[in-house]
């Protein structure tokens, strides 16, 4: 059940990335392309969060553990 809802969310984020790529390729001015790139980075953060759920480990949002382990 949880995984089904999260797959639907993954589909919505994929659609968002496709629409953003349309604006990135077509963009009337250069500022439009920059905005599309900005939106792409923001939505990729959400995508990485979802992927780290499916991978089952926190390694994608995993920082600075090595300092205390070693």
């Amino acid at each position, binding site marked *: 059940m949880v995984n089904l809802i999260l797959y639907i969310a993954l589909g919505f984020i994929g659609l968002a990335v496709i629409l953003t790529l349309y604006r990135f390729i077509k963009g009337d001015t250069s500022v439009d392309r920059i905005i599309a790139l900005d939106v792409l980075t923001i939505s990729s953060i959400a995508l990485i969060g979802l992927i780290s759920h499916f991978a089952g480990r926190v390694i994608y949002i995993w*920082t*600075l*553990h090595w*300092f*205390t382990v070693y």
Partner: protein
Amino acid sequence: MKIKNIIVAFFLLLATWFLLNGKYDLTTLGIGIMLSLFISLVFCGKCEIFSEMNFSPKGILYFFTYIFVSLGELIKSNFDVARRVVSPSLPINPGIVEVETKLKSKLGRMILANSITLTPGTLTVKVEGDTFFIHCINVEHTDIEGATKDIVKKFEKYLEVIYG
């Protein structure tokens, strides 16, 4: 004032360190205290960011109230913009208006401009002294007083206490 600045930066860095690590034992605490003391002593001696803040109980209470108020505004105006995007006729009414603020401290103005930008529908284009130029997706008042009352007042009454 310099001491206050260093102390606030130290606790902020220590909190970030604990949130990043996710475990609370003595080794983590020792390394965290060493690192945040070093960074705050070296880098935060000259900057004056936190020395304008008001750390009385009333200021701290207003700070947390301000966080919840701005989060509520964020969600409310996000639904408004989503409704405008989805509806087929695209009911927008854009324009750049001019507002004025009464805040004097630099950090207070920065947080005010960031909050205005973070609520969808309003976007700070330029800050010039006391004057903010704001791009609205739906302009209701074009004069300075009306626009100030619409956009700035709801954040300003909290920030005036925090950065008083």
